[in-house]
């Protein structure tokens, strides 16, 4: 796990001077090992494989709902709704990922999180129905098996 | 040339955000619009770097975005602390 984290960090610092990069990577590793903050949640390795497909799907979804939001802003007919959405993910990382995905698509914002229900503010009826169909929920639950 | 027109449009939208930050009824409006100003400003820095043929400005834009996020969270924490003390 430590080696994987080192690899990610050094891949990020490849564009700078390599030597200073190495020194700072070792320093950061030393600091985070001292504070004992490394566990599964920091860098889930299994997730890295499936991530690009999920990102492409997420970008498509963002563009689709962004167009709807732009239409609502310019036309001015808006009818907001509060809905409750059930999350079927097992672990905490999956739930956090799902809430982030809801907030990231423009037009829906997660307001409050109970144990496994989210309170979501949606900008129009169309967007909330899109969310309630549960496609995003299923996909992220499959991601975090 | 196109970059200058883009910069003008970005400046116009920053003006809109400043209007909301000055007028906003609740503190959260002000925080939200200031964070949006930060994002637009970082984009403006990047576009400005391309407009004057000095692409090093991209690094500054990156730093700007990270600091913008930290600032938003810090102001929110501060506001929450202050509200709790009052009650």
């Amino acid at each position, binding site marked *: 796990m430590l080696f994987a984290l080192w690899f990610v960090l050094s891949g990020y610092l490849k564009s700078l001077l390599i030597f200073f990069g190495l020194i700072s990577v070792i320093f950061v590793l030393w600091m985070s090992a001292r504070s004992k903050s490394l566990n599964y949640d920091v860098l889930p390795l299994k997730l890295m494989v499936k991530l690009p497909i999920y990102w492409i799907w997420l970008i498509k979804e963002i563009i689709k709902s962004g167009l709807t939001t732009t239409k609502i*802003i310019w036309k001015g007919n808006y009818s907001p709704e509060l809905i409750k959405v059930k999350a079927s993910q097992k672990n905490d990382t999956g739930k956090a990922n799902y809430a982030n995905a809801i907030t990231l698509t423009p037009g829906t914002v997660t307001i409050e999180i109970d144990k496994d229900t989210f309170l979501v503010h949606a900008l129009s009826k169309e967007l909330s129905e899109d969310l309630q169909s549960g496609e995003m929920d299923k996909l992220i639950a499959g991601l975090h098996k | 040339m196109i970059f200058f027109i883009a910069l003008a449009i970005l400046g116009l939208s920053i003006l809109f*955000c400043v209007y909301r930050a000055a007028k906003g009824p609740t503190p*959260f409006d002000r925080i*939200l619009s200031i964070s949006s100003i930060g994002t637009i400003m970082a984009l403006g820095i990047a576009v400005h770097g391309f407009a004057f043929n000095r692409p090093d400005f991209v690094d500054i834009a990156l730093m700007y975005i990270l600091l913008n996020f930290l600032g938003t969270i810090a102001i929110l924490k501060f506001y929450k602390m202050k509200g709790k003390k009052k009650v």
Partner: protein
Amino acid sequence: MEYLINYSTIFFLFLGCFFILSGSVGLIKLPDVFSRIHAAGLIDTLGTGFIILSLIIHSGFSLLSLKLLLIPLFILFTSPISGHAISLFAHESGHKPKAKLKRK
């Protein structure tokens, strides 16, 4: 090829500018805090994405474009966190949204 690069740069740049402009207009037009967060999210995701895409096309593939790609990546991580924090604190401090709660 040169034409293609130039025109696609112009197209995506103005698409991003249009989204940012409409987001800031929404920041003025919409009536309460919770719906203004949507407008700010529109600025953060679509406007940034398209403008950075146009700059990447303009600069060609190099180390610089990799650095440009890091900007939307950071925004992808930080924007929902700050949006959620703002809405959570606004909800806790007693601002009621104008929408009604709908049961399934």
